[in-house]
């Protein structure tokens, strides 16, 4: 596929992620911060996000699965996840975190568990989509083109 087509595909794909509410303006912020002095900034930041998220989800699963749930602990994990997801613009992940927090306040274990499942699904979805996006970027660069930015 030639460069122009790849670039169009990339822009359409990016636009769809914003339209579906998977990403918000904060992701564009990250793209703006990428430049010649920081050429892999977005990939690096998102990779850090994946690492942090996987650990948080693991810790959350254990915390919510305890006989006696420590809601303060659960809330602390979710607060962190909310912060990191909002800092990269993973809007639906952030919203899933907000949902868990309200059930934490009510100390509703079952609802927390349901929300955790939802959170895992949203995370999985945005992770797959972002990895697809980076693959498209790579194809553009390998074909000798520049990665376009969505206006």
């Amino acid at each position, binding site marked *: 596929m030639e460069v122009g087509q790849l670039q169009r595909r990339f822009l359409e794909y990016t636009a769809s992620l914003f339209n579906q509410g998977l990403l918000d303006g*904060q992701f564009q*912020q*990250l793209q*703006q*911060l990428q430049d010649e002095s*920081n050429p892999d*900034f977005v990939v*690096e*930041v998102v990779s*850090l*996000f994946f690492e*942090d998220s996987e650990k948080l989800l693991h810790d959350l699963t254990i915390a919510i699965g305890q006989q006696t749930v420590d809601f303060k602990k659960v809330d*602390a994990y979710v*607060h*962190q996840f*909310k*912060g*990191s997801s*909002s*800092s*990269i613009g993973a809007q639906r992940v952030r919203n899933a975190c907000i949902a868990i927090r309200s059930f934490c306040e009510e100390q509703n274990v079952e609802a927390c568990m349901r929300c955790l499942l939802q959170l895992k699904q949203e995370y999985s979805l945005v992770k797959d989509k972002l990895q697809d996006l980076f693959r498209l970027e790579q194809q553009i660069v390998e074909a000798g083109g520049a990665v376009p930015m969505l206006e």
Partner: protein
Amino acid sequence: MLIDRDSCRSRLYQVLKLLPEFGGEVDKPLSGKKVLVVEDENLLQKIATAILSRLGVTIEISNNGHEALQTVSKALEDQRTSESPPSLPYDYIFMDFQMPVMDGIAATRRIREEEAKYGVHIPIFAVSAHTDGPEIQQMKQAGVAYNLSKPLNIAKLTEFLSSFEI
């Protein structure tokens, strides 16, 4: 207090001129400033660093409130013993709220106590997910100048820091 329309307008233009959207100095509008970023999470450190570097700021990082206190104390002590004229070791401190070892509120309080010995005052901005509530009150009581909400944003930060200077 009444502010006349002209000075309001000129102040607005001064701030707007700095923004890239208005043909402002894209290159380093806050060049020469030195900021201490106090944040425990790698991801957020990386983003704060990129945003502040883009604005031309020199950054140092402390991983928690305790490290920040040590860093600031040492910098103030070093300045006292140096020959050069006194100046603030940092133009601003960006302080995260929730951190291990020592949190943002305790760190702010302790830094203020330390500063009092030297008669200086470094503006501390909280970087918090909260926009109101008891935590914000506590921050203000501890000595925080302003709460920058998370996540940090280049345009909002540029506008805020520029107007803070004026």
